[in-house]
């Protein structure tokens, strides 16, 4: 009987330990990377964006490397995102060609401009174009696109409801705005926050704050979003807000601190979960396939913005903790980047099931750039 009591105790330990190690606390594969390796990854991806850019400034949107097939399709929000990534990476020539593509497709009415064609103009394409042109303005001081940014900004403001909700699409034929998309809302918040940073006291602050408060307090509930939004664009917006000429109110900063903490947790668990994925064996059964490269990149760039935020707030210990996770994301990105195949549509790109899309380069580049800036500058990363 005593032996049985001991055996039951040992069995309880074995079951608990095995359950934790096998089912929950899977090994996290986060190899160390260097700034040089990250920069090489950026350079290779930027080359992909150069090589795969059409003469009109657009990109080969989707490609299957197994069949060597251009899968067609296009998405203007992702076009603007690629331009933003290129400006972040410092390739202004390729990015400027992407801007020309967008400027050829501006729709103007009511005194504003929206990037797109056809019967529907989405907020995301215009918002990210503002963010991209704003990056160019920050880096060069060149006022060439100031008026375009303002025109696009007025479109974003016109799509913003009094409570801060951002309508996703504008239909000129019916003069109606409709729908919501979590990422578009964050993109509009980012764009208007960047406009306020660049052009203070020109009316961008109020709508930027309005969207920000809506996102931080109500967005997920109001738009029935679950699980909570992995809000990389909102992360950029909060980083921008700390650079406003007239500092945000203490109350708004406190609200942002809370949202930053929440997003750090979301990005953190996503990073840990992804780092447990090997794509084979028990890991495949329990954790599934590695995520889309674009998705992984959004985690890295989102944390990059949060790390810059923490650096600007003077919380270098928090920034350092986030940096370890950014490093993990980028190590996994670098491990998946295709090189040396001789296929110009594949080298420098990231694939999922043999398919790459332009945003599979956009977000990883933005993630790697965030890492390089933070790791080499050590604080708020620029």
């Amino acid at each position, binding site marked *: *009987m*005593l032996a*049985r*009591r*001991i055996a*039951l*105790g*040992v069995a*309880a*330990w074995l*079951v*608990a*330990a095995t*359950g*934790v*190690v096998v*089912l*929950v*606390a*899977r*090994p*996290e*594969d986060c190899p160390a990377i260097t700034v040089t390796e990250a920069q090489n990854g950026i350079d290779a991806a930027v080359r992909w964006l150069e090589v795969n850019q059409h003469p009109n400034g657009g990109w080969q949107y989707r490609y299957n490397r197994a069949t060597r097939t251009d899968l067609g399709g296009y998405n203007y929000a992702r076009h603007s995102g690629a331009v933003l990534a290129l400006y972040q990476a410092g390739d202004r020539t390729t990015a400027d060609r992407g801007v020309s593509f967008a400027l050829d497709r501006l729709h103007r009415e009511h005194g504003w401009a929206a990037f797109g064609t056809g019967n529907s103009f989405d907020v995301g394409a215009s918002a990210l174009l503002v963010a991209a042109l704003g990056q160019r303005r920050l880096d060069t001081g060149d006022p060439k696109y100031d008026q375009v940014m303002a025109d696009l900004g007025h479109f974003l403001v016109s799509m913003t409801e009094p409570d801060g909700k951002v309508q996703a699409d504008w239909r000129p034929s019916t003069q109606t705005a409709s729908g919501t998309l979590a990422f578009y809302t964050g993109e509009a918040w980012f764009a208007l926050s960047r406009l306020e940073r660049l052009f203070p006291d020109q009316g961008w602050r109020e709508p930027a704050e309005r969207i920000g408060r809506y996102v931080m307090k109500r967005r997920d509930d109001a738009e029935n979003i679950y699980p909570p939004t992995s809000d990389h664009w909102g992360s950029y917006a909060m980083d921008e807000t700390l650079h406003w000429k007239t500092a945000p109110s203490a109350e708004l900063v406190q609200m942002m601190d809370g949202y930053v903490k*929440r997003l*750090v*947790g*979301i*990005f*953190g*668990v996503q990073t*840990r979960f992804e780092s*447990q994925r090997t794509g084979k064996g028990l890991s495949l059964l329990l954790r599934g396939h590695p995520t889309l490269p674009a998705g992984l990149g959004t985690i890295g760039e989102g944390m990059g913005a949060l790390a810059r935020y923490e650096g600007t707030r003077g919380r270098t210990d928090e920034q350092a*903790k*986030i940096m*370890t*996770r950014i490093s993990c994301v980028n190590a996994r990105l670098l491990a998946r980047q295709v090189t040396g195949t001789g296929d110009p549509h594949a080298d420098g790109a990231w694939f999922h099931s043999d398919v790459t899309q332009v945003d599979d380069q956009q977000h990883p580049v933005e993630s790697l750039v965030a890492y390089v800036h933070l790791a080499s500058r050590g604080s708020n990363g620029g």
Partner: protein
Amino acid sequence: MADFNAASALVEGLAVLAATNPPRVWSALPPRPDRVPGAGVGAAIVVGAALVLAAVASALLDLLDVSASTFRIGAGIVIAVVGVHDLIAGAPKPEPALRGWRAGLIPIAFPLLVNPALGAAALTASADHGMVTAVGAAAIGGAALVALATLTEPARVLRGAGRIVGAALVILGIALAVDGVFSL
């Protein structure tokens, strides 16, 4: 990755303390005159076990390539499951046991005090906050058991208290698991 703050140190310390569940273990203490010595042996061993677990926590997690926040999820689940057991299972009996004060070894120290919840809580508390939280909380639990060993009544109240501590373990375990999910 240590993520120190007072609230999480308190929760993890309480988890270690609750994992020892002194009012529940009280039911398994041997009769007098071995009652207090047996509790003392159990208390010493649980403190020693916490000390060992605390000392190896970070190295163990590094060996397993597991971050403290991910381990916290697993630890929380184990703690909650043991809590459910303590909540619904009957109080442990003094027999079978080693004779005399050696009952402090079996069953008091093992399997009652040094149980999977104590292991999980001590490891996660130490990985997050260093050794003091885990060892200190285990010492408080051991001391509480020795103090309770001076009592022989009221058994029903103490058994009820053991169930309440079990319920607390469930809550603490869930809190730890959720915190582990939404941590960096």
